């Protein structure tokens, strides 16, 4: 057996949906407060007062259902990847399953692997459907990520998410998986201890041995197993904690910038953590043509990457318009200042 992860049955995405909250704060506004004047991104999304990872997951899941046009009662698993669970103990997935009408005949659980919890849930969904255990499984990645005020993570930690419904490959499939590959090592570049409000990170240690090593190893591993070279892909989406990192990965792998930019949203919405590559892929699926091949590589601190090769099918053309496009959410925006941002992030004690 090779290293490639491939189920017995061919599976693909039958529905996808994204959600990004409407509020934005400009990086220079955060910089104004903390006396910083160079920024990793332009602006980031901020959750409304009544939004959390669960409500983001619900809207993304509803959009995925609109495109899939399936009965939610046929979903046999709903797995939710997040690192900003509203409850430390009590599944978020059950709230989402109830809200979309998928209960009670399904498995539901929350996944956590820093920024790659969403693709972790996707790997599990591929296995669940690909083994024949389930007709459909839903994987969601969503976060309202935390950054310590004044820390450089505060410039990027944002809110958003996306949902994917996996089903057996047929003519209704929007895009199918050719295979996936996961690469994991114990690399403590970022963590949040129990009862702590904010994560800590290893500063420069987060780059070379963590982000770049896992993503590039996963991308190369997948291409090796599938006998593909970078030129076989029409689009590439890499985890996007900022703008520079994913573009550097593309450069190292020899993938032109033009193939990365359509799925690179961090410059205008920030890092949605567990939602990051899922939202990026949704933006690509909104514009991709049948036959396009997409390279998808997530990254989660701690650390590891999941890499997927996805091929777009004809059904995308008629189904992508059944729900709001990712850019509809990205372009719906209202700027707030740091004082309101602090209110939205529940920083005030009444």
């Amino acid at each position: 057996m090779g290293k490639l992860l491939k189920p017995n049955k061919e599976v693909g995405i039958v529905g996808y949906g994204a959600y990004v909250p409407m509020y934005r704060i400009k990086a220079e506004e955060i910089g104004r407060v903390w006396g910083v004047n160079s920024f990793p991104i332009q602006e980031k999304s901020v959750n409304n007062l009544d939004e959390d990872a669960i409500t983001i997951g619900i809207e993304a899941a509803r959009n995925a259902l609109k495109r899939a046009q399936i009965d939610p009662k046929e979903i046999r698993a709903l797995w939710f990847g997040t690192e900003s669970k509203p409850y430390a103990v009590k599944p978020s997935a059950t709230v989402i399953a109830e809200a979309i009408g998928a209960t009670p005949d399904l498995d539901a659980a929350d996944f956590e692997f820093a920024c790659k919890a969403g693709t972790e849930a996707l790997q599990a969904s591929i296995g669940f459907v690909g083994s024949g255990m389930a007709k459909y499984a839903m994987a969601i990645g969503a976060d309202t990520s935390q950054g310590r005020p004044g820390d450089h993570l505060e410039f990027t930690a944002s809110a958003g998410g996306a949902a994917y419904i996996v089903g057996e490959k047929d003519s209704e499939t929007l895009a199918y998986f050719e295979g996936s590959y996961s690469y994991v090592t114990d690399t403590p570049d970022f963590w949040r201890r129990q009862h702590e409000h904010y994560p800590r990170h290893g500063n420069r240690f987060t780059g070379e041995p963590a982000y770049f090593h896992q993503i590039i190893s996963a991308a190369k591993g997948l291409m090796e197993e599938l006998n593909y070279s970078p030129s076989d892909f029409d689009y590439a989406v890499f985890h996007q904690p900022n703008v520079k990192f994913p573009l550097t990965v593309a450069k190292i792998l020899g993938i032109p910038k033009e193939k990365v930019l359509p799925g690179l949203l961090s410059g205008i919405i920030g890092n949605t953590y567990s939602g990051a590559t899922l939202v990026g892929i949704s933006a690509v699926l909104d514009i991709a043509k049948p036959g396009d091949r997409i390279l998808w590589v997530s990254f989660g601190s701690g650390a590891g990457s999941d890499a997927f090769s996805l091929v777009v099918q004809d059904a995308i053309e008629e189904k992508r318009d059944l729900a709001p496009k990712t850019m509809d959410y990205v372009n719906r925006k209202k700027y707030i200042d740091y004082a309101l941002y602090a209110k939205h992030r529940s920083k005030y004690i009444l």
Partner: protein
Amino acid sequence: MGRPMQVARYWRHFKEKYRMVGTKCKECGEIYFPPRQVCPKCGSREMEDVQLSGKGKVLSWTIVRNPPSGFEYFRPYPLALIELEEGPIVLAQLTDVDENQIDFGMEVEMVTRKIREFEGDGLILYGYKFRPPIKP
């Protein structure tokens, strides 16, 4: 510490609060939200669940500046009477909207949002709110 929190009281209504499941009278066809067990119009007890579309129009609204306890952090927030396309009229908060954007007849769609939290260690209550529709 803390206010009374009756989990069962809220849990009983999750289906209607999270995704607007109403009831329809099997005899006369009238649709109700919140759900009813007996039809006030024809007296029938033959009611079935019906999934509402969540689409409606603003009939009237106000801005709440002195909210009841548990809602202080959200102030100010708009509270509106919304006529659903299936007929029932519901009272709900508007969200993702500027005060000066709200108007009579404004089209809205349902979203599931956080309604309130019961202290730091209590239940988080989710439910329906309405916002201007996302294109398309």
